[in-house]
């Protein structure tokens, strides 16, 4: 039986460092090539030595597909392609291809320039790596080689995020990457057609969450910001530069516009401006509203949101500031936080997840006194709010996607093991399909039941169609006669005549004969005639012929009469029929002849 093998090198029962190997129909595909944010050593990149110890990766991998530009999905890309060495095709969507290098470059700068690491990839490596990228369009089927084809679907999540459908022959796998089933202010919802893959590999970040309606969240968020502004307070929103930040910007921008608010909104600059540029360009990847209105005004051309300068933080009066990074662990957001923490009028809104150990995590857990470096303590008087704006599918969204795609097996990655376990149970119960959740390095094998295509000649098909009654009931299997020819790796179903012809064989006919004795005083010809008339009266609707050479033919059954040698009154009936009509003859024998016999005999007791 053919098998599909899936091995996560990262993201198996874990969030971060997404990297999954799939072997399908003899092809090896790597899905995503991410890094882990939590580590600074070798563990941050996937273990490529799992694939090969000393050979080049190119020989083992047929292609690499990147789902979106987040570093935990593409951060190890230059390392893999340039430092480990991979020259095969890399696929990603156009926006990902545009934004990915910006993030990689930023990441490189922080690691090399700030932290002073050596033996890291260089700018040139990023560029070289991007040269190997082949861009994908949505719903475009790309032929990687003769057998392997991939197709991208819209995934929401961030600009350019895609789900991929990988197909070899009749086996297929869908990898979702990160996706979002509820649309937000700038992106639409993920969508896939009923492709019925053998395995659906889905993320499961929010496996145990069913989120409130996003409108509630938005309303709460806006209300909190608005109230704080009206009080004259300052609002700090720590964000990561790309993704959620744009959504929140649009949300605030439109709110400011609608409500005619005047308080300034700032965005700490840097890579955001470059990225915003791409957001403006890739309008087709955004949601309905932005797509429809961009002719009048591109929503990403913000009117109220201005670039932030360090000196603005001390300005009097209300303001809203988006600052990076999102967990308050360093950089501008932390600086501003320190300045504003003392005033209870101010507010900090955490729009996403915070890793343990960060200041963000501490204040969310209600800590009101923070120890800063140099033994200084910081009193946190400002209000702390948490709003989940994460653009991952929640449990219900995952279920919805399963319903859309109708997979035969399910495989969960990119989530915490405990939560996955819960969802796994749900999926198995609800859809009665198998669900797997391999850990890193653990291989899941799924046997498939691929259908074997057979060519059939049109004439044969038509002939057989004509035989079987009316058309409805396509679900009911129907038997047909034909000859299966296996020849040079291809299967063909043809009619028997053609098969004989192709094989150069002669047709042999198989005939059965049987003798029946009966008593009849008449002459041979007379008896035959009597049988003929009798059959004619019994078997209405069949062709019965009386041939001059002394035979009666019923369809293809031949009946002859001869007198036996011993007794002229004893007639021997010779019946002969071909293989196909065997049952028929039996019927004749069983029904008709006894009739004749009794009739004949009754006349002559």
């Amino acid at each position, binding site marked *: 039986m053919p098998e599909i093998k899936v091995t996560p090198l990262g993201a198996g029962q874990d969030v971060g460092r997404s990297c999954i190997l799939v072997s399908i129909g003899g092809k090896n595909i790597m899905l995503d090539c991410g890094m882990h944010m939590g580590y600074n050593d070798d563990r941050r990149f996937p273990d490529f030595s799992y694939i090969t110890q000393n050979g080049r990766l190119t020989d083992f991998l047929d292609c690499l597909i990147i789902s979106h530009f987040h570093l935990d999905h593409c951060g190890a890309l230059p390392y893999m392609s340039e430092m480990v060495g991979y020259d095969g095709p890399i696929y990603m969507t156009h926006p990902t291809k545009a934004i990915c290098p910006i993030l990689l470059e930023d990441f490189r700068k922080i690691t090399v320039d700030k932290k002073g690491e050596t033996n890291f990839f260089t700018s040139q490596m990023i560029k070289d790596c991007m040269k190997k990228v082949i861009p994908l369009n949505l719903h475009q089927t790309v032929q990687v080689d003769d057998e392997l084809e991939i197709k991208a679907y819209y995934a929401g999540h961030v600009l350019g995020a895609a789900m991929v459908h990988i197909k070899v022959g009749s086996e297929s796998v869908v990898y979702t990457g990160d996706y979002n089933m509820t649309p937000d202010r700038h992106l*639409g919802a993920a969508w896939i057609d009923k492709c019925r893959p053998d395995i659906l590999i889905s993320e499961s970040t929010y496996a*145990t969450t069913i989120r409130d309606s996003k409108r509630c*969240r938005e309303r709460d968020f806006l209300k909190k910001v608005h109230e704080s502004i009206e009080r004259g307070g300052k609002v700090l929103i720590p964000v990561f530069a790309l993704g959620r930040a744009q959504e929140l910007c649009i949300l605030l921008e439109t709110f400011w516009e609608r*409500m005619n608010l005047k308080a300034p909104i700032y965005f700490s600059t840097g890579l955001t401006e470059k990225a915003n540029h791409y957001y403006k360009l890739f309008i087709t990847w955004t949601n*309905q509203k932005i797509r429809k209105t961009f002719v009048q005004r591109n929503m990403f051309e913000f009117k109220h949101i201005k670039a932030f300068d360090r000196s603005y933080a001390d300005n009097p009066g209300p303001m809203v500031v988006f600052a990076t990074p999102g967990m308050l662990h360093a950089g501008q957001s932390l600086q501003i936080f320190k300045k504003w923490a003392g005033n209870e009028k101010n507010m900090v809104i955490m729009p996403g997840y915070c890793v343990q150990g960060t200041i963000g995590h501490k204040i969310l857990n209600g800590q009101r006194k923070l120890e800063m470096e140099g033994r200084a303590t910081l009193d946190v008087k400002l209000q702390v709010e948490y709003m989940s704006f994460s653009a991952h599918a929640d*449990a*219900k969204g995952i*279920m919805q996607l399963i319903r859309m795609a109708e997979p035969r097996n399910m495989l969960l990655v990119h989530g915490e093991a405990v939560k996955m376990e*819960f969802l796994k149970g749900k999926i198995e119960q609800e*859809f009665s399909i198998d669900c797997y959740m391999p850990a890193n390095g653990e291989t899941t094998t799924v046997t498939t039941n691929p259908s074997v295509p057979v060519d059939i000649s049109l004439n044969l098909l038509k002939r057989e169609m004509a035989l079987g009654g009316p058309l409805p009931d396509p679900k009911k299997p129907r038997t047909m006669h034909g000859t299966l020819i296996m020849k040079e790796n291809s299967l063909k179903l043809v009619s028997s005549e053609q098969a004989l012809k192709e094989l150069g064989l002669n047709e042999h006919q198989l005939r059965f004969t049987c003798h029946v004795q009966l008593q009849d005083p008449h002459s041979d010809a007379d008896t035959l005639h009597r049988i003929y008339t009798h059959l004619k009266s019994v078997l209405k609707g069949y062709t019965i012929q009386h041939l001059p050479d002394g035979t009666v033919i019923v369809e293809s059954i031949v009946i002859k009469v001869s007198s036996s040698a011993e007794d002229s009154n004893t007639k021997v009936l010779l019946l002969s029929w071909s293989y196909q009509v065997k049952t028929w003859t039996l019927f004749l024998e069983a029904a008709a002849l006894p009739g004749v016999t009794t009739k004949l005999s009754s006349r002559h007791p």
Partner: protein
Amino acid sequence: MLFVVATVFLHLQIPHEETPAKKLRLSKPSKSAALHIDLCKATNSTDALQYLLQFARKPVEAESVEGVVRILLEHYYKETDNSVRLKIASLLGLLSKTQGFSPDCIVDDAINTLSNEKSHQVLAQLLETLLIIGTQLPESPALRLRLVEVAYKHLSDTYFGVRNKCLQLLGCLGMVDAPLGKENEGAGTSLGGLRDVQSIISDYFGDQDPRVRTAALKAMLQLHERGMKIHQIIYDQACRLLTDDYEQVRSAAVQMVWVLSQLYPESIVPIPSSNEEIRLVDDAFGKISHMVSDGSWMVRVQAAKTLGSMLQVSPHFLEQTLDKKLMSDLRRKRTAHERAKELFASGEFSSGRKWADDAPKEKLDTNTVNLIASGACGAFVHGLEDEMFEVRIAAVEALCQLARSSPSFAEKCLDFLVDMFNDEIEEVRLQSIHVLREISTHITLREDQLDTVLAVLEDSSRDIREALHELLCYTNVSTKECIQLALLELLKNLNKYPTDRNSVWKCLKFLGSRHPTLVLPLVPELLSTHPYFDTPEPDMDDPAYIAVLVLVFNAAKSCPTMPALFSDHTFRHYAYLRDSLSHLVPPLRLPGRKQVYGLDSVDSGPGSGSVESAQLFLQQSLNRVSTIQNLEAPGAQDLLDLTTRDLLRLGELQTELAGAADFCATYLRCQLLLMKALQEKLWNMAVPLCLKQNVTATAAAQQILEETYKLEFLYSGLESRQVATIHHVRLQAKALQLVLTARTRQGLDLLIGSCEKFLQDVESFQRLFLTELPHLQDSFVDKLLELMPRLSSCKPVELVKILQTTLRQSGLLQLRLPEQIHRATATIIEPTGESDNPLRFTSGLVVALDIDATLEHVQDPQNTVKVQVLYPDGQSHVIHPKPGDFRKPGPHRHRLITQVYLSHTAWTEPSQIEVRLLLAYSSSSTSLTSPSKLGWSESLESLPPAEAAVEGTIPFSKAVKVFIMPKPARR
């Protein structure tokens, strides 16, 4: 497409050709003959096709259709090319649609053609033709039966198009009244007589081609529309199709399931995988709810819309649509114990609103929570969050329908509707506000809900704010804090958008009269009265203070204890507001306030009685005026003067009659002016001496002319009688002008020209108002017409003399009031003209000025209303607003919200420009030539050259001054 064009053409042509009946008969044989010859001439199929295409463009008369059909059929049998046969088949269908032609004579031939046809496409087209024939002959059951049989025969065709058409035929023609079986047994069709149309169609629900499946569902729906009762067995099959791979099938299946749920709401269906049963309508509701999260947005829209009309669904199910978490409960009824457990269990889902509330807790019974919505769960939550605004709007509308029939559901969906106020698409926001208003009779807003509703008051879109004001007018609130909150927010709104003044006041009026008891405890605070100290008297012109007073006074109307809390100045303010804003402040019975009470009694009964008495007064005044026999009668002037004044005042007091009163007053003023002009001594003086008086008379004539145009075009509801009267006055004014011209100017040529023109005017008057002439006895024109033969031949000087005497001797024409007469009015709300800050802009460039105005009783404002901008240097611009700038908030009411662009050369200091609205008119489009006729250029040409159309504009709003300052451009 071609067919449609051709049929339209047919219908147009037929009435035209009716008149030359003989010609038509002559052309009849030639037409079919021509086709015959053409087709015979055709050497190959391409030619034949060309001929047929040409033929299809021409109409065929009902009489010759049959002949043409025969020729086509004859050719059909000979033709070997599929495309030509296809075209012929389609032509047959087209022809049988000809009006006045009964296609029963060609049915046999059409059916016969089917038997030998090999091409599937042609077969499908022929069936389509049969369908047309069948629908043309609804009264022939025998024919229907035959056609249905034909459809049965071809149902097993391998081509999907043929099956489609067969199903369509069955759907449109299948027997409604009785199962087909009985009639069919005699006919002995091969399919067996025992099966009816429905079961045959339902066989094709499982067809391999999605198009056929759709057609089968559509055919079934068609049967339902034609009144056949669909069997309940279909339900299961239809439900299965809800999971079809193709969206059009799913969409049709949603409709099918809906139809069945309406037919058999109370039947019981089993729940698969359990031994319990539920009502069919509930089951269907659950299934359709499921479709709200379908992959195709078309299906989602369909499903969301459908949900709105399933009113029989049990409340239990209905409420699930707003819930995302309670999931498996829907499928099986549970014991209370289990439910309690589930409530506990549902806690394991994090809502994402609190940090770390999804941290793993102890394992609970996870089996009770069913993740996938196997029923109605959260359908609306999904629908309202959908990516496509079409789905969201459909969901909002469905919510509205369901909420209107179920108060408890209305209560529940409130939060969701309020959330929609924050949608990114304005249309959706607006729609949800409207919906909330519609269901607001059922609900009482809680404080927190009110809070979110009120937050929208700051929206910059005027439409949204006004819709919200409208909503607040109908809202019930529960506590006095709510009232306070609402007032606070409304005042904030007023502060931020001063233009909302009227709307806010109106809103407070309703809020006050709805919740008198809630307002009562707030009164001291609102009016800032103090038990011991006198507080300073608030500023009466402050819109916010007026707003508070409007709230309080309206509440006081049904709360007699409230006035006791008022302070002295409040009573004074009441009297003032009652007079100035009488539509917002109700009459109050205030104890011990004489002057207020007295004023009160005058206006106290604004019922029908006072309108009637005012009407009576109006009529009496008019009657009094009509006693004036001659314009020169003594005292006539005073009487007119007095009556005019009375009428104007009446118009102010009684708004219902304002139009009529104004109309009469204007008319009388015209008469008065005319009278004064004629009574001048000047007529007896020598020409050179009276130049000065002459000027006043000329001015009077000019003014009368202008007034007549106002009379004609500013008022709606005029009948032709009044129009005649107005034209009569105009004629008088023209006569006056002529007389004056004759006296002042010496040029004879000019005079002759004017005389001729005047005579033309008289003639056209006669022509236009022929029916009204009997009513104009003894009037100026009556007398003129008597003298007409003489006038047309006499010299100009003589004519002038006659006119002069006739003018002076003719009596006053009595004015008859029409039933309803309204004056077109316009009020510019924005700009207010109060701003002292000049609008600065660089000279040579433009600045946009927002105009917001309400128009009342203006017909066709898109074409008539214009904006005039008057610059201080006398330059004036007339701007024509776009048709889209007009909205229609109510009957006879329009709203103009537009922008005008201003520009000027540089000024040294800011100065004011005037903006006003103009009503454009053109005398050529008077009521006598219907505007629809004007559309045809031919008919215009055929008319005799009408009198030169007088076009002009009437200013009908107060001018608003706007401060602007064009700065010189910086180099």
